[in-house]
């Protein structure tokens, strides 16, 4: 049977779409089912973050870094704060370092829970979304009792943190972590090894290793393709070198290495590693110590520039900060991991079916606030 060519139609999986995780527009040329060309169009949430940074002082930029990646706000502001501290080389007390790692890892679990829940939604499973949000609410409660906010915290300050851990936080954390571990096995039963989920996500949207590196894809998307690259291990910042945890890498259990299922599996395993890190951090954390001790009177880094990278739940989050001695930064550039992951979308998803492309998009776990800045 020869290949019968139908007319191509241009579809817009537009800015308002349930499965584009925000305001992303995919311009798709398709003959009905198979996609021959796909171009992501972004910029619908460009909120001029970098222009704001040039008019605000160093501390005032922190709430804006929270709002860039609003699902993992702690990790975002942690990256910025560590960069500024490195420029001013402030010594951070031990207790603050441990609190920061605990908060960043908790936010990583919350972000992965949301990512896996909405990925289940994209594939069509509604109940795992509700299970995972139930646990995410528990983590947000822990954030709430520490710094009063649920989603955007302004918790990490240059030189310290805004509030010390409340009484009973450590015990509540231990109790919660045990329950979370049992729930994680529950997720595997309802979603990971579900036949329909495997059929929809295994062998689909394969990102080969060299394509991923060439496009600058980082984080769980890169580890899903089999490259063992995690900034917490390869370029340890703050006190991550004191914790023992391993870096899960995609092995192609259900299909081939680098498919959507592998990226999902890497995120699920990473949550277990984060639980391990939090446990070790809670044990070794010094019980006493003032968190406001090392707060500088005026945050004014010396002339010069720095490029500092941390591991956010979506990948390598880089901050390029250039200061000319004045209280407001000359330039703050945020290297967004989801931005480069999305740039690989058109390469890896030509030729797939329309329904597969939405699964590939869901597995990349993009956040539009961070892409458009």
């Amino acid at each position: 049977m020869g290949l019968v060519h139908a007319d191509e139609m241009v579809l817009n999986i537009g800015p308002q779409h349930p499965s584009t995780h925000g305001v992303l527009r995919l311009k798709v040329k398709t003959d009905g089912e198979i996609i021959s060309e796909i171009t992501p169009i972004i910029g619908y949430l460009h909120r001029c973050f970098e222009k704001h940074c040039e008019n605000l002082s160093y501390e005032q930029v922190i709430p804006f870094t929270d709002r860039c990646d609003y699902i993992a706000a702690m990790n975002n502001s942690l990256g910025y704060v560590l960069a500024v501290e490195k420029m001013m080389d402030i010594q951070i007390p031990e207790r603050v370092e441990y609190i920061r790692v605990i908060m960043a890892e908790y936010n990583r679990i919350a972000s992965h829970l949301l990512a896996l829940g909405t990925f289940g939604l994209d594939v069509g499973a509604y109940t795992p979304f509700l299970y995972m949000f139930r646990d995410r609410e528990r983590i947000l409660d822990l954030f709430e009792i520490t710094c009063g906010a649920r989603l955007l915290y302004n918790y990490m300050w240059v030189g310290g943190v805004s509030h010390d851990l409340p009484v009973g936080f450590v015990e509540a954390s231990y109790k919660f972590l045990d329950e979370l571990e049992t729930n994680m096995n529950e997720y595997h039963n309802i979603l990971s090894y579900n036949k329909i989920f495997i059929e929809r996500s295994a062998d689909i949207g394969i990102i080969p290793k060299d394509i991923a590196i060439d496009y600058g894809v980082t984080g769980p998307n890169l580890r899903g393709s089999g490259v063992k690259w995690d900034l917490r291990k390869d370029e340890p910042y703050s006190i991550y070198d004191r914790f023992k945890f391993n870096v899960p890498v995609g092995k192609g259990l259900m299909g081939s290495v680098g498919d959507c299922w592998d990226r999902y599996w890497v995120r699920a395993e990473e949550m277990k590693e984060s639980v391990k890190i939090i446990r070790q951090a809670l044990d070794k954390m010094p019980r006493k110590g003032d968190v406001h001790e090392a707060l500088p009177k005026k945050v004014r880094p010396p002339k010069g520039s720095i490029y500092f990278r941390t591991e956010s739940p979506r990948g390598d989050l880089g901050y390029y900060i250039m200061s000319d001695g004045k209280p407001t930064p000359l330039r703050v550039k945020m290297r967004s991991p989801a931005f480069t992951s999305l740039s690989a979308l058109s390469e890896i998803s030509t030729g797939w079916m329309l329904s597969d492309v939405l699964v590939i998009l869901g597995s990349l776990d993009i956040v539009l606030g961070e892409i458009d800045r």
Partner: protein
Amino acid sequence: MIINQKVSDIFQDKFPGVVILPEEPHNDYIQIQPEKWNGLAKFIKTDSELKFDSCQCITGIDLGIEEGLEVRYNFHSMKLKHKIEIRIAVERKRPSVPSVEQVWRGADWLEREVYDMYGIRFKGHRDLRRMLLPDDWKGWPLRKDYKTPNIYNGMKVPKVRKGWD
């Protein structure tokens, strides 16, 4: 930084007269001329000792109303686990830098965003359009001398509503 010395020595003998050594000794970057940047880019990606295969970040910077613009590249090697920063100074009137989009596919969107924000034209870029702002947007927003437009197709863009400050 050790890597910087090694890289600039390699540059010196392979590409004489390209590298402008940094003034402050401790800084870990290399300033180069824009002309031969394309050939240099292919070289640092394929050379056995350097192997910078991942283009981490391209940053455009406006140094001030009087000074010119600058494009800064941060590269990183997955295999040899080292990184380097390369800077190219560009003057303000007709800023243009050779594009490395064919060398690293990741640089495609990063360059389009720098063009969108600073107006630095990347010669040889196959699809140089605005990345974030709508196509009919006037001006380059992140330049220091940029004035916010008051009207954008029918919608007021007042900087601050009266009585707010």
